[in-house]
């Protein structure tokens, strides 16, 4: 593959070098083409801050946005661009996929800017590890999402006379009271990634972060096919009783709007859900509640967005990439972007006073869990395992969740197979 890619790549390099030489100016001004899927209004406006910062430094920003399926379409485009020897300068790639692109030898090197900016001390170790390939920085983190949140509508809970649950068992206990006042206890959308989000949260709640890591990160077959997993799967399937019939194929934000509108009481979803509440003009702590998912207070499932840099063609392009990487981590962008996105900054040293209580809690928990080992990558959001394994786990989880006849024992066995049998 490498040799195949090299030929067209070189050709592009040459072409760009020529244009670069003509357009050289005292402040090395280059251009960056950025492939991303920040396409919603709020995200786009936030990402625009980055574009403006780049332009202020004299660089040109070429925007290449592709929405669809949590970046799936964008990844297809990226592969196609890479095959044609014409990858963009930077692309929104995350988690283990950064390593795969690194293995292909396509990513650039950000060590210089990382050293100058002191990323080693700036970034939490867990985050920095994901951004490095073979010891070199190849990507820059944009934000940290927390996945294990529970969102609840307090008016609805009050009406039913129940408290915000602090364990999965309590979720089941309050379900009847909620049903009595005509409310769906848990809003959910029946899409594989949403099923997997609930699944990993249940595993974390029932079995703790050590087991989670062993099963869903290290793919230990003994953990995947264990009594603990079978219990977790049983509970996971029981979660269905908290949901409604219309959930199949529902987008997550429709589920969130059910919580906002009071048709449903709670939702298990990452902190991007906050954008929906904010857009509805609601205030955290008053109009809606954000708490760590029941039973997972001492853990933090992270989902980190990052921009990976492809090998630059010349000095101008390299300079533009370095500037882009630096600006991404600068407070101006970190604050603007994460306020819009609901996530927290990727660097731990920022003043959080501009953020709301949910984000502040998220940051505090992020710091605490990175000390005590409760910080785990989200399997459902492609942070823990390779895409192929993740897909195989999704198949088992979603099939088990939707198939009334499949036993948890069978599902656990298939999970163990999914983790190990792939080529």
């Amino acid at each position, binding site marked *: *593959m490498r040799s*195949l*890619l090299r030929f067209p790549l070189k050709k592009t390099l040459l072409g760009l070098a020529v244009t670069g030489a003509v357009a050289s100016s005292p402040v090395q001004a280059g251009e960056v083409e950025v492939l991303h899927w920040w396409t919603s209004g709020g995200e786009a406006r936030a990402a625009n801050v980055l574009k403006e910062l780049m332009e202020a430094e004299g660089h040109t920003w070429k925007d290449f946005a592709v929405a669809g*399926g949590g970046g*799936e379409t964008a*990844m*297809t485009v990226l*592969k196609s661009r*890479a*095959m044609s020897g014409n990858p963009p300068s930077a692309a929104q790639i995350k988690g283990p*996929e950064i390593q*795969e*692109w690194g293995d*292909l030898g396509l990513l650039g090197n950000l060590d210089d800017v990382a050293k100058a900016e002191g990323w080693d001390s700036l970034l939490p170790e867990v985050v920095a590890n994901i951004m490095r390939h073979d010891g070199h920085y190849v990507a820059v983190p944009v934000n940290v999402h927390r996945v294990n949140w529970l969102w609840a509508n307090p008016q609805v809970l009050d009406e039913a006379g129940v408290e915000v649950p602090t364990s999965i068992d309590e979720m089941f206990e309050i379900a009847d009271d909620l049903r009595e006042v005509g409310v769906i206890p848990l809003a959910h959308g*029946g*899409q*594989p990634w949403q099923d997997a989000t609930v699944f990993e949260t249940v595993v974390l709640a029932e079995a703790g972060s050590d087991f989670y890591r062993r099963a869903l990160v290290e793919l230990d077959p003994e953990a995947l096919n264990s009594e603990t997993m079978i219990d977790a799967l049983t509970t996971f399937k029981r979660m269905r009783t908290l949901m*409604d*019939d*219309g*959930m*199949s*194929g*529902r987008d997550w934000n429709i589920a969130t709007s059910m919580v906002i509108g009071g048709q449903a009481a709670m939702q298990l979803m990452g902190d991007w859900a906050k954008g929906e509440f904010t857009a509805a003009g609601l205030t955290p702590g008053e109009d809606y509640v954000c708490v760590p998912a029941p039973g997972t207070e001492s853990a933090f499932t992270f989902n980190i967005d990052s921009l990976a840099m492809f090998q630059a063609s010349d000095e101008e392009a390299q300079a533009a990439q370095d500037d882009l990487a630096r600006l991404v981590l600068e407070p101006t962008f970190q604050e603007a972007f994460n306020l819009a996105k609901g996530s927290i900054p990727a660097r731990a040293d920022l003043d959080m006073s501009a953020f709301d209580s949910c984000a502040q809690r998220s940051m505090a928990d992020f710091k605490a869990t990175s000390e005590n080992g409760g910080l785990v990558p989200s399997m459902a959001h492609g942070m823990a395992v*390779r*895409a*192929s394994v*993740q*897909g*195989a786990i999704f*198949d088992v989880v*979603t*099939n088990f*969740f*939707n*198939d009334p006849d499949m036993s948890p024992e069978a599902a656990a066995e298939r999970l163990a197979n999914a983790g190990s*049998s*792939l*080529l």
Partner: protein
Amino acid sequence: MSTSLSPARAARAPAKRSALGTLSDWLPRLVLAPSIAVSLFFVYGFMIWTFVLSLTNSRMLPSYDFVGFAQYAQLMANDRWWVAASNLVVFGGLFVGICLVLGAGLAILLDQRIRQEGSLRTIYLYPMALSFIVTGVVWKWLLNPSLGLQAMVRGWGFESFTFDWLVNPDMAVYTLVIAAVWQASGFVMALFLAGLRGIDDSIIKAAQLDGASLPRIYARVVMPCLRPVVFSAVMILSHIAIKSFDLVVALTGGGPGYASDLPATFMYTHAFTRAQIGLGSASAMLMLGGVLAILIPYLYSELRSRRHG
């Protein structure tokens, strides 16, 4: 739209072979050459390339690390693949069948000197002009029990009306059929209508004089004349069925679970989303094999029977 082979035989042999004649013998081939070359390279070359990849353990991008038929073995053991393959049989069969029946039916009705035929025809035909990126959302709403048809009919007072195929793993694939029929049946109608208009009136008049009833005339006289139309329609419909992708993504996303997956979505998901290009290529090869296995006998028998008929 027919693919008849019978006429134009006479065109084959020019009377004299002058120097000009030789050139004009070769000119047609020269004109066709670029298209042939393009087909060979972009269709058959890519198929071979895909076959080669199906023998490798390519992941995110193609690599040439051969593993024999291991990807095929893995595919055979993959539950999801079998769901997708059997869904294609159900979906393809129903889709082609219903479109033909509905298309032919509407065409026959529309051929009865209808007022406003032009408007009706346009209404039946327009869905073909829209892609499912456009209409997917609406279909999702319509089929969603708590939002669409079910809610609407219940709102009219029929409380027990249930239409929840979209959320029922056993029925989800049929929702794909509904939307796909909606899109393509108007086009089939146009094909049949064109076919009906092309039939010589005198044949029907003769049958009427013989005292044949109307349905009988259609079944015995008209339909056999429309065989070439059926052939064209089947080719176009099966091409749509096999390529159905946007439809699944927009409507069900393959769900619930993966109950409404089709081979095209299976292939795409594995090759692109899950970085298993080897497995995805293997599924593509099996898919093409299946298409060949069904199409070649049909093509052969159609073309053959017409040649002798």
